[in-house]
């Protein structure tokens, strides 16, 4: 079976640290320093308050599957999911390196990084 190719889209000004950290095996989250709350996907302006007083913090890299779907129409089939991180935000991701029959809503997962087409690395999750 052919390997799935993860296509890097590019960065926008301010998102480089996220992708640089992923190359180092770290998942970063964007936090509002005014109230200490994270958001996802990372922005340069907080989507809850429009504050620009933000910082990056490393996430623990663990969470639970909120929902998922196995895309059988694709070859190879892949598993798209939302994972709710322990920090409280949910992110779109793929569940990888896990037999399909072990994937359940509520399942604990941990981050793994997959090679993208251009040398970047993509945060994905596997069953913990």
């Amino acid at each position: 079976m052919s390997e799935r190719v993860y296509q890097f889209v590019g960065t926008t000004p301010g998102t480089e640290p996220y992708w640089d950290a992923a190359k180092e095996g770290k998942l970063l989250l964007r936090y509002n320093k005014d109230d200490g709350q994270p958001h996802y996907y990372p922005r340069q302006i907080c989507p809850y308050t429009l504050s620009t007083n933000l910082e990056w913090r490393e996430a623990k890299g663990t969470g639970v599957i909120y929902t998922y779907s196995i895309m059988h129409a694709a070859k190879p089939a892949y598993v798209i999911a939302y994972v709710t991180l322990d920090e409280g935000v949910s992110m779109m991701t793929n569940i990888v390196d896990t037999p399909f029959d072990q994937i359940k809503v509520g399942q604990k997962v941990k981050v793994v990084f997959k090679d993208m087409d251009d040398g970047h690395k993509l945060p994905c999750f596997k069953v913990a």
Partner: protein
Amino acid sequence: MSLKGKAYIVGAWEHPTRKAPDISLMQLHAECAKGALEDAGLTSKDVDGYFCAAGDTPGLGGMSMAEYMGLRLKHYDSTDSGGSSYNLHVGHALMAIATGRCNVALVTLAGRPRSEGVQTGTAPRMGNVQQAELQFEFPYGPATANMYAMAARRHMHEFGTTSEQLAWVKVAASHHAQYNPHAMLQKVVTVEDVVNSPMVSDPLHRLDCCVISDGGGALVITKPEIAKSLKRPLVKVIGTGEANKAQWGGRNLDLTYSAGRESGQSAFEMAGVKPSDIKYASIYDSFTITVVMQLEDLGFCKKGDGGKFVSDGNLISGVGKLPFNTDGGGLCSNHPGNRGGMTKVIEAVRQARGEAHPKVQVKDHSIVLAHGTGGSLGTRHVGSTVILERE
């Protein structure tokens, strides 16, 4: 100022084509406009307001399209909310007419994804990198089908909804489509047919998905004085609403409800009616789960009870309590341009007029509803609700 009843839908026309390799996109729009204006008994010279969705109209917004059709406008609106755009345009036209900005509003939709070989449901769509979420979503392979499948999975998890219950939505649509000679899928199917069809994106099967078709449609909306001078049955716009739904900033993600919750409430409040007053409903049916969630959000049943509500033929005209999509809907008839809101409004107008196919025409068609969801239940979308009254 209440907008209730300040405009009427006097023209509604659906293009009969389902595959149009030899008709240009702009010609399709124009043919729909001609059909709806002839239905109303008006001409393009009468049109002073034009509404289209920027995304299915070539050129800058609707400028090229307006020129192609020779329109001279006092009011212009190319708001795009995906497949719900046309439901939303009814509300915008109502506002424009009620405030005197225009007298005769034309709304058009057209599209040819089938002729162009678009992999509508299963291929992730690349946008512009400036769309800030794209770099955080596209690499994971979000396609239309798996986004709706994730909403379905969560609904099943929280409420015990089953694939068999979702299948009833398709079964009901197929019962209606058998009477529509233009429908792409005219064969009546069973729950077993649906759950045994190939899995596209778990838990959605092929028959949980709408068709991919070319085509289009158009509406003509006008003020009461003009509507009453025409020869068509009077279909009054009594309620409209729109709302967006998104992941917001990722906290408290909830994929079990749609923007219909808010757009429906606005429309029902304006109309001064309740869900139990609605005798026919056009409900956007990109997928079977879409219908279940929207019926809950619009208040036809409690949140989580949608699976039970649609079961056992409850959506079949002449059988169930809430006949829906009596043209066969997107699930069986067509989904022109991957945008199903226009045909939802058109079939609601047919029902309100009493001009639906006799086999599916509801007896009491005094108050009908058309609801659309544009975008994706799995990421971000806009819902729009229209309530119509036969005068």
